[in-house]
Structure formats: C-alpha cells, structure tokens
C-alpha cells in the first residue's frame, strides 16, 4: 500500500523569541512571567522556524534539502531525528531513523575501541552487534594503531572518521545527513559517498541537507528548497537547484 519511507504533513516549528533572547532562562524572568497577567503579549514575538512543510520520500531515494543559512534545514533535521518536537503537523517515518551526527558523544579519556562501543550504544546499537561489526568498523575508520590510545590523542579528522565508520555500520532504513563529509580528506569522503550510494541501492532512504549543490545534482532525485522556513520549491533536483541558484545569484 505504501512505499513511502517518509511522509510529512504540514510540519511546523515555532519558537518564542524570548526563548531565544536570554538563552538561559533566568529564575527571575520565570517568576516575573508567572506573576504577569495572563493572555497578555503571549505569542507576540514568535518565530516560525518552519511552517507548512509537506513532502514525501520513497524508499531507496535521496531527498536533498537546500536553502540559505537559517532557512530551517537543521530544524527540519532535528524534528525528523526526534531531537525536538514539532509545534504542528506530523511526520511518519517507516523504518529506523539515524542521524549522521559526526564526532559527538565521544569520551576523550577512553580509547578508540571503547569509544566505538560508546558511540554505537548512543546511536542505538547493541553490544553484540558491535562485537560482530567491530573489525569492519575499525577497517573503515582507517585509524590503525591509534585505536588503543585515548581519543584525546586523535586528530579531529581521525575522530570524525571514527564517527562515520560507526554511523555507516548501523542497521537503519532512514539516514539523515546534515552537511557533508567535506571536512575529511578526499579519499575518505569518496569512500563515504560510495558507502552511501551502496546503502541507497540496498533500499536505505536518505535525507541530505547540504550546501554542496554539485553533489546533490549527482546524487538526488528530488530536492526541497527551504526559504525562511517555508518550502520555496520542491521537485526534481535539477530544476530546484537551478531555480535556487538563479535566485541567490540575482540577489
């Protein structure tokens, strides 16, 4: 009946501006808010970081997401990866969703091997699964003998290679990628792209938010162009990217 891996319906995320401004809620402000008469200026300074987002992605397809900084790409990714809840609308995801998060959740004092287990655990992998895939992860990461030393001695490139190696060994149906592998060297980023292409061939669905337009043109079928939180254009990659380029270059 349904071969869509991802469907969203009128997805929206609203932030109250005073939530942005002091960033840290001060106890004083909260007390003041509490004492203030209600229904007054409640939602005057709202920002819709995302509004009316509806799209669908078929199984085994890649959806590219483009837009200027602050257009809502990351917010959309955050909603899809369940980091933050939408304010309205809904999304249906058929399959296990994992973000390609880069080097997060690592413990600097632990060794590379120990961090593989920790990071894989955070991303929802079981210990037995990691045991089975450890050799393959190690090989993919190309970090060699460093794996037995604390992570603080790794270069930042090595850390992210380790993170990607773990992420690419997850069992998943939907992969969310925010930004590219551009920070690693050419050969490793090519390896990542090859792996991704192979995963897509095997039926993995990918959402790919990036500024690397050439890469999107080559890889994706459809593209979503976000502008100030709304969909500015949505359709075949080539047309959407061309219209995006035309618009941005003009300004």
């Amino acid at each position, binding site marked *: 009946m349904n071969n869509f891996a991802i469907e969203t319906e009128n997805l929206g995320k609203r932030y109250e501006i005073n939530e942005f401004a002091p960033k840290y809620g001060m106890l004083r402000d909260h007390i003041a808010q509490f004492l203030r008469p209600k229904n007054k200026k409640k939602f005057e300074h709202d920002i819709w970081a995302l509004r009316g987002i509806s799209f669908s992605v078929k199984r085994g397809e890649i959806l590219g997401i483009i837009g200027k900084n602050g257009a809502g790409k990351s917010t959309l990714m*955050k909603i899809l990866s*369940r980091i933050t*809840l939408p304010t309205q609308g809904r999304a249906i995801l058929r399959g296990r969703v994992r973000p390609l998060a880069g080097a997060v*959740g690592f*413990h600097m004092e632990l060794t590379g091997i*120990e961090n593989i287990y920790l990071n894989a*655990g955070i991303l*929802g992998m079981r210990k037995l699964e990691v045991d089975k895939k450890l050799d393959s992860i190690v090989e993919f990461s190309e970090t060699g003998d460093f794996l037995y030393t604390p992570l603080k001695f790794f270069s930042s490139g090595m850390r992210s290679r380790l993170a990607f190696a773990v992420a690419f060994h997850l069992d998943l149906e939907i992969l969310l990628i925010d930004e590219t592998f551009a920070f690693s060297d050419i050969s490793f980023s090519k390896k990542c792209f090859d792996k991704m292409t192979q995963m897509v061939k095997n039926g993995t669905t990918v959402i790919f938010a990036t500024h690397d337009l050439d890469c999107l043109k080559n890889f994706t079928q459809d593209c979503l162009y976000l502008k100030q939180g709304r969909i500015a254009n949505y359709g075949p990659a080539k047309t959407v990217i061309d219209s995006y380029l035309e618009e941005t270059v003009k300004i």
Partner: protein
Amino acid sequence: MKVLKKENSGHFEDHLVIEPKLAWGRILFNEVWYHKELLYFLTWSHIKGRYKQTVIGIAWATLRPVLTMAIFSLLFGKLARVSSEGVPYPLFVYAGLLPWQCFIHSVNLSMDSITRNSDLIKKVYFPRLFLPASAALSALVDFFISFGVFFILMIYYKWMPARSIILLPALVILLTIFITAVGFILSALNAFFRDVELATPFFLQIALFLTPVIYPVSIVSAKWKWLVYLNPLAGLIESFRACLLGYKPLPWGGLVLAAVLILGLFVCGLIFFIKSEETFPDII
C-alpha cells in the same frame, strides 16, 4: 490491509509518527527498554574515564571517606565529644559517611549531566534520562570500594557484624533509587536554571549538619525526631548504621517513611524529567 497490518506489528521503530504531543508511553516503555544497554555503556564510560590521568587513581574512592572520617573523628569525636551511642566514633561516623558521600558524589556527577552534554543532546536522540542516571549510578562504584575500608575498620575495632547486615542490599537499592531521583530532578532543573549548579554545593554543606551523619538521631529530642526523619537521607543513614553495626534495632518508622519519600521522589522526578526532556535542545 495486509500491508498495514505488517507495518504495525514488529519492532516499534518500523513505523514512527512524530507529532507535537509528547509520546510518554513510547519514551518510557519502548525507548528506554530498547536502549537499555546504553545505560551500561554510559555508566561504564564514566567509571573508566573518571580516574584517568590521576596518580593514585581509584584510591581516591577510599581516600575521600577515610580523610573525612579522620577529621570528623578528631573534631566531633575527640574535641566536641558528640555521642556515638557507644560505638567507637570513627566506626560510627564512617558507617554514616558511606551513604552520605555516595549521595554527594552522585549529586556532583549528575547535576550538570544535561548541560555538559549539550552537544550530544542537540545531535542525537536517545532517552535523555540515561545521562543523569548513568552519572548517578557511577557513584556507586566508589561507594562499594569504600566499603572495603569499613570492613578493615571493623576488624581493627574488633566489631562483629550482626545478623541485621542481611538487610544491606535493600538499603543499597533504596539509596540507588534516591540518588537517581535526585539526579533526574537536579539535572533537569539545571538545564533551565544554572543557579542549581552554583547553589547545590553550598546547600550540600549545610545538609551535612541537618542529616544525622556526624551525630545520631537519638540526641534530637523526641518532639523533633519526625522533622529530622522528613529528610529521607536521615532514615537511610540511621538504618545503614544500625544494619552495619547491629548495636541497635533498625529505626523502622524512619526507614519506612524514607522509603515512601524516596519512591515518591523517584516517580515525581521521572515525570518532571520526561516532561522537560523535549525542551532541552532548545534551551541548553
């Protein structure tokens, strides 16, 4: 229809609906259960990472309570002559310091567990309650190690353990629930108000004097005992002492009250934490 049925069965992640409403049941019963190994990974990484690049390493776990015991014995045992109910004061105070320092240690580790991991919280989803829970649980390792010294002290003072010691596991479980509950509450509060991590160390210092660690509850007049026991740690610490040293019957009234308070605190803490969980990425 057939396909629909297949979609709804099987693993919970096969079909995920994201909506503005927080899916309570899903977090508690599916996510936490599915990620249960993560609690182990995180706790273990805390323990392994804690004493790296230190000279005496895990020995700190015993040194802290031993030094505190020595100072307290001198100040309160020898100089101020605080009653220790007939037990040698060092033994008396150490039995109380065991759960007390476990509590302090756990609070220090867990209260900033959300704010410290903002990077992770903004990038990956996993049940956030594992962050304070793993930090709190990792304090138990130091607690168990410092038990070793207690048994050495018992041998030194030729103090025979009583039969009441079989209740020790129940008390340890109660202590574990308590420190986890406090971890939930403080870490979530600290995400909203950084005042928590500034104020807590100060309040902990005061709490030491309001809790029967350096003195027994018996020096408090009968009229005010209930007030002391409103602090769940009071019932817990008095029970630890009675259980480990066996020189007096367990303060059942205080213990039952402590157990009720602790379980209540745990449920409230859990609800509060899960309710605040979804706003963490936007405020830290």
